[in-house]
């Protein structure tokens, strides 16, 4: 498990034991503050324009998220920072996490609404402002979304928020009706008493606001859940707006007089701008400014197309010598060489418990694996709106890590934090891209706004090429593995070298996460792994490069699962054992892993007869506290692979929204399969060779397998589902290909091995 998550889970258990639930929410009123309220209203053409309201003594929630005006204005009862009830009976829930498609808006609302006994059709959601005191991710201690932690860290907090609100509504009704609180029932946002008394939450809201918050709110038992775990009870709150075009993303923000900017970024990593000639660019109609910014040269215009045309006309001279030697093939060769050298140990073989030497290896299985740089390529290219006005800065973007974005935006603008306000919008995907310790696109937008001296609000738009060439890649990785088996076919020794950039070194997270020279995200999944492998001897090399590395949906597990799970099949074959039985023997201390694997195998009919050219392959992987096992069924035809079906078992503790869990498994499988088939950012002379979807191919509908998802029933605290569906897919498919008589593929993507149409 991830060290941060481990610490969090321990804390969460302790909190539960102490019944200190009330400490998880902040009683209203919020810390005093006057917040400028921005109201989004429908424009004449159906787009959104922003009108500026006055200064209102109002908590910041009114300006959050999609900017719905109504709820907070009518919020008669706001017992904490997460929930309010309006006189119109609308319950508004504030999502402290970033919605990039994972479904946490629905999930967090479910936690509150269930404990509150709210009518789901009366629930509305908003996104929180940047405020780490009120809205920190309890797993990180700062406000941000990542590590598949949204539901896990919020589970007790959001339920407490709902239970607190319910208790105060009940207390208000008890007082009004002069009956004991215990006799009052709540259901679908209505309070009732056997005497015939009845009131909606909206009718009781004002009285509830006068009640004292309970010191120890009582949470439901799983048997009492009315929404959690119920299929069909909580349809996604963001479906309608995303099916009619009204959902507002960064690029959809329109401010009065807003300009659009594109930046001429360096063409290669490490390149420095020498000079630029803006004569032709300035002649493009609509271009208003051509300005140097730390990121490159910004072309600012009255329309997006004019900005793009201006950039095309711009002449920039770059010094590309700093990155000239950067080359993917050369790096792979260097990394392979490094893997033969001693590195920093991440796993040391444990001495045998009885003092006797371990059984001697009589056979060895070895392999060297190579993984390319990967871009995240979310559907929505990066962008941010920045507006400097009246001595303050406002930004609109998919702020996945508001605490970082807030800090870096303030620094770029030269303003104190309290003069900088972030508006977090939904994102068109991220997969890790929008959470980075440099806040790259937010800072770039602010730099442009500063460069034009705050003359107008400015929207920075990355093109697909800008986004894909920006670095922040899943680092290129090499694993070298040598495993010894004894006479009985048991693992006797395991030497494992990992080579690749550290994601967290050099960032603010280094201090928190790097221990004894080991970035745990480089080796997670190898050590610790799902299996009992006390004999592991692990060495890590973390070279530095002028290309920024970043987490990519499931982070280190993107490569470690492939290595571990294809090795398991190689070892099983060498030992003459069935891959399922071989794994089970190593899972006696991991009952959750064994159960998930068995469930997937049972549901897939593991071992059944397959047509010629077809085979099953399986894989198991645990990450972010969630265990996922998958069985892939593939067909090889004319040397090309087709994945027909994937059966997936997931143990993520309590299933808050079963359909969201299924969706994340389905999506994780497709995302992983596309990367396995095609994805690679290849560097040559410092330049990324793939810059758009024509070169960086993505999975398409005709390549998507049938997917069946089975959720392991559990009452354990929930763990994440955004990432854990990804890692097992690639090794399950690779194992199936090998079992179908195809090649054992150790260099990704598959397009390199010719088993898919490149």
């Amino acid at each position, binding site marked *: 498990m991830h060290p941060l998550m481990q610490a969090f889970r321990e804390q969460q258990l302790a909190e539960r034991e102490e019944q200190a639930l009330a400490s998880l929410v902040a009683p209203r009123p919020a810390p005093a503050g006057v917040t400028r309220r921005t109201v989004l209203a429908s424009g004449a053409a159906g787009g959104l324009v922003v009108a500026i309201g006055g200064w209102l003594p109002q908590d910041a929630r009114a300006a959050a998220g999609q900017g719905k005006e109504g709820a907070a204005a009518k919020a008669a009862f706001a017992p904490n920072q997460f929930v309010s009830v309006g006189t119109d009976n609308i319950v508004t829930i504030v999502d402290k996490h970033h919605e990039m*498609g994972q479904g946490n808006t629905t999930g967090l609302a479910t936690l509150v609404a269930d404990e509150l006994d709210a009518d789901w059709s009366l629930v509305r959601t908003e996104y929180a402002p940047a405020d780490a005191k009120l809205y920190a991710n309890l797993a990180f201690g700062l406000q941000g979304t990542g590590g598949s932690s949204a539901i896990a860290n919020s589970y007790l907090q959001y339920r407490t928020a709902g239970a607190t609100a319910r208790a105060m509504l009940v207390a208000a009704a008890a007082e009004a009706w002069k009956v004991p609180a215990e006799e009052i029932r709540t259901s679908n946002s209505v309070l009732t008493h056997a005497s015939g008394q009845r009131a909606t939450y909206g009718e009781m809201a004002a009285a509830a606001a006068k009640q004292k918050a309970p010191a120890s709110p009582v949470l439901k038992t799983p048997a009492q859940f009315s929404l959690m775990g119920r299929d069909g009870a909580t349809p996604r709150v*963001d*479906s309608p707006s995303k099916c009619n*075009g009204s959902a507002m993303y960064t*690029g959809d923000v329109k401010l009065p007089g807003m300009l659009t900017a594109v930046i001429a970024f360096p063409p290669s990593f490490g390149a420095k701008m020498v000079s630029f000639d803006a004569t032709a660019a300035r002649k493009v109609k609509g271009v208003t400014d051509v300005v140097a910014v730390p990121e490159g040269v910004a072309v600012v215009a009255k329309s997006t197309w004019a900005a793009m045309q201006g950039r095309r006309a711009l002449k920039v001279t770059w010094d590309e010598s700093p990155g000239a030697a950067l080359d993917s093939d050369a790096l792979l060769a260097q990394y392979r060489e490094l893997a033969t050298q001693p590195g920093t140990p991440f796993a040391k073989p444990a001495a045998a418990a009885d003092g006797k030497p371990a059984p001697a290896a009589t056979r060895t299985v070895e392999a060297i694996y190579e993984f390319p740089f990967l871009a995240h390529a979310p559907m929505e290219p990066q962008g941010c709106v920045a507006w400097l006005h009246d001595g303050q800065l406002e930004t609109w973007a998919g702020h996945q890590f508001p605490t970082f974005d807030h800090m870096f935006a303030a620094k770029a603008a030269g303003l104190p934090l309290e003069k900088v306000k972030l508006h977090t919008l939904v994102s068109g*995907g991220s997969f890790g891209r929008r959470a980075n310790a440099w806040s790259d696109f937010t800072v770039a937008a602010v730099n442009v706004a500063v460069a034009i001296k705050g003359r107008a609000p400015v929207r920075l738009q990355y093109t*697909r090429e800008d986004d894909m060439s920006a670095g922040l890649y899943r680092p290129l990785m090499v694993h070298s593995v040598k495993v010894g088996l004894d006479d009985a076919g048991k693992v006797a020794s395991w030497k494992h070298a990992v080579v690749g950039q550290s994601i967290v070194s050099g960032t603010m997270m280094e201090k928190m996460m790097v221990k004894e020279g080991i970035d745990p995200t480089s080796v997670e999944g190898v050590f610790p792994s799902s299996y009992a492998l006390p004999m592991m001897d692990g060495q890590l090399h973390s070279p530095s490069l002028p290309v920024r590395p970043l987490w990519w949906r499931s982070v280190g597990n993107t490569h470690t699962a492939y290595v571990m799970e294809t090795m398991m099949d190689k070892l099983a074959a060498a030992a003459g054992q069935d891959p399922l039985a071989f794994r089970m023997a190593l899972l006696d201390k991991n009952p959750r892993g064994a159960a998930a694997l068995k469930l997937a195998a049972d549901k897939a009919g593991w071992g059944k007869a397959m047509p010629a050219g077809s085979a099953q392959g399986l894989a198991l992987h645990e990450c972010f506290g969630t265990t996922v096992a998958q069985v892939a069924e593939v067909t090889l035809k004319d040397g090309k692979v087709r994945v027909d079906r994937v059966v997936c078992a997931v143990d993520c503790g309590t299933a808050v929204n079963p359909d969201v869990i299924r*969706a994340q498994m389905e999506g994780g499988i497709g995302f992983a399969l596309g990367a396995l088939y095609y994805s690679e950012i290849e560097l040559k002379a410092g330049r990324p060779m793939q810059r758009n979807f024509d070169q960086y191919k993505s999975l398409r509908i*005709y390549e*998507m397998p049938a997917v069946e998802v089975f959720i392991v029933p559990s009452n354990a605290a929930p763990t994440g589902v955004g990432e854990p569906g990804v890692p097992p897919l690639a090794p399950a498919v690779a194992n199936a290909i090998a079992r179908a008589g195809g090649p054992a593929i150790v260099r990704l993507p598959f397009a390199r091995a010719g088993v898919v149409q490149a």
Partner: protein
Amino acid sequence: MTTVSLNVNGHAHKVEADPETPLLWVIRDDIGLTGTKFGCGVAQCGACTVHLDGQPARSCVTPATAVAGRKVTTIEGLQSRAAKAVQKAWVDLDVVQCGYCQSGQIMSAAALLEQNPRPSDQDIDHAMAGNICRCATYVRIRAAIHQAAGQLAA
């Protein structure tokens, strides 16, 4: 610069634009309809899909001047029975995740069902091949198209 005349969602618009301006940016920047998305700019991802006289087209590579006299429909202007069935099925099955590609997916699916009310899986593969979903909601896209087709046949 030239004056571009367009009919978008049944409304006539006159816009001053560079003649090469893609329809996408005229729809988004000038007309202010933002449901049509920018994804790649090279007709590879389908996020910008609109209908031209009922046929799906990638607005990011269609010059605005090329659509004079044709009816442009965006996600905001979908009216047909098939289109409404598609949108309903999308909501019923919670197809969306990040949602950014879904306007384009829905436009492609609606055009498919308007021409072929009972598509096979192969028909769906063919019609939807130009629309990338990085969240890989493809299982549900397929299911929603079949569900919408079922509703149309009912």
